[in-house]
């Protein structure tokens, strides 16, 4: 996969992986006279107008050219663990302990001004790697530059993640939701309660990958304890 997929005029990086089905017998095809050309006659994806290829919305896709990455590397050095580019998006993997300082630095640097916390969430990496279990995902937006930036920090299951409420007021509810759904404790959060689930919910944190889709305890409508169920299990994958 190329480092800069947005630059090469619309051809997505995985176009080569398109399954090449055998060509139709021309005789049969002429008799059938399809109204629309079958998709497998086309070579990969249709040509995409460059307008629709989102590029530059996350800054330059080059570690040496992106001012935020350059500034972060100069300021924080070993707290920056890696940079990833996918499509037009820039992901900076940082250490969880330095997340608030990095966010405050990105917010206050006059050249960058990542003032807005677009999103704060987490990913449970249970099925994909051993440690650390969670990735806290922070999406920032810079109003003057019109760029986004994603910070990712690995957090172990027993490790509290420092709060961002000191930097962004928006982090209050987003971190509460993170705690509610994943059990990630934000150290220093002024009001860390459950957000969406009930206050007395005692069945853990539902967006963890080991949480069953239908919950640990089966809910039975009062008065329907003996009623036969139409479908015992979900037909979808777990």
């Amino acid at each position, binding site marked *: 996969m190329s480092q800069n997929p947005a630059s090469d005029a619309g051809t997505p990086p995985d176009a080569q992986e398109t399954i090449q089905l055998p060509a139709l017998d021309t005789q049969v095809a002429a008799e059938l006279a399809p109204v629309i050309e079958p998709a497998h006659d086309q070579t990969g994806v*249709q040509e995409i107008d460059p307008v629709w290829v989102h590029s530059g919305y996350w800054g330059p896709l080059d570690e040496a050219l992106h001012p935020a990455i350059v500034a972060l590397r100069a300021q924080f050095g070993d707290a920056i663990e890696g940079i990833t580019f996918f499509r037009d998006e820039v992901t900076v993997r940082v250490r969880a302990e330095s997340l608030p300082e990095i966010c405050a630095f990105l917010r206050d640097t006059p050249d960058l001004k990542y003032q807005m916390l677009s999103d704060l969430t987490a990913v449970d990496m249970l099925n994909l790697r051993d440690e650390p279990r969670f990735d806290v995902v922070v999406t920032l937006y810079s109003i003057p530059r019109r760029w986004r930036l994603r910070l990712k920090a690995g957090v172990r299951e027993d490790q509290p993640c420092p709060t961002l409420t000191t930097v962004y007021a928006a982090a209050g509810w987003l971190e509460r*939701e993170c705690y509610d759904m994943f059990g990630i404790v934000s150290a220093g959060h002024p009001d860390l309660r459950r957000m969406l689930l009930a206050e007395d919910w005692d069945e853990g944190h539902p967006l963890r990958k080991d949480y069953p889709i239908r919950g640990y305890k089966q809910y039975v409508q009062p008065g329907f304890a003996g009623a036969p169920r139409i479908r015992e299990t979900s037909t979808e994958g777990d």
Partner: protein
Amino acid sequence: MMQETSTTGTMQIESERQIGDNRREMVLNMGPQHPSTHGVLRVVVTLDGETIVATDPIIGYLHRGVEKIGETRRYSQFTPWTDRTDYVAAPLNNLGYILAVEKLCGIAAPERAQYWRVIMAELSRIASHLVWLGTHALDIGALSMSLYCFRERELILDIFERFCGARLTTNMMEIGGFSREIPLGLTDMIEDFLKIFPERQQEYSDILTQNPIWIARTRGIGVIEPEAAISYGLTGACLRGSGINYDIRKAQPYLIYDRLDFEVPIGTRGDVYDRYLVRMEEMRQAMRIIRQCLDQAPTDGPLMLNESNYVIPPHATVLRTAEDMQRHFVWVIKGFEAPKGEVYMAIEQSKGELGYYIYSDGSNMPYRMRLRTPDFVNLQVLPYMAQGAMLADVVAMIGTIDIVLGSVDR
């Protein structure tokens, strides 16, 4: 202790305590079945007399675990669930999700489909703003507004019904474009709407904009300072009412928005009245966008991307060729395997920035599906706005944030 509770009452006193000689601090529960909370929002208000000391919005009564559901469904199966998050602007939710999946897969819809997506998205924005205007004005006391607004919204729902067969939960957008042709007569319906709606909107404006009661209830109420608006992550009219120019259609244009000529209204004071003016102007700008799209959109050409991996094959070839029939079968039964990676795609929904974050591990289901809904983030500014305000103004403040609880709770 004074008891004003009743078993069916929606406003009830939780507790009271003396904080001075003639002052009592009262904790009042509002909702979750209160008519002015636009659904099942519960607000616990701490009062000193009529003045609000603290507000605690409690949400989650409509939590259905949409994100968990998204992680257990194939990519094409999740679109109907996006309808049910913000159910007054379903096509916009479809659009955000579909654009996120298309970005993940590296595909884009044909030009004609993009124009029609914009038309449907802007119609949906008008419909959503009409619901907001009707209920917001109803909360403040202009009862007749809700009747008028829902009358015009009906025209838009009729257009949706003609387009896709459904009125509320449309499930309209598909990965790669639209698989059905634009129905006959749809353009005429939209043209009729474009003729009818401006004068109707002028009537709403005549009722409210200069109305002294409306101004008294909204001007200077619920002021959000620009710095606070940015720090709270507000988007949409809540942010633009405070004078910050951030509209994703302009800042990071998607689809064909960069070809269209429209303005982004900006408020100056950041109060309820300014946000009202911003949303009214947004409806007018949406009309301009629809007008331009109808003029510019190609009249023929493909509506669906002809692509063999991620897009459902066209129905005509499915019935004619064995290969496309097989692909159709695989696409429906097994789904497609998206590339590994993560995308965050944000669009300007009627209420603000609607972001879909998808983390893909290369399988046919997203590993992590995240909905960053605008009203969830916007609602947490309510305690800030309500601090020191009067109890009766909380109703105006909840209305001005423009929440839909399905979208807040997900």
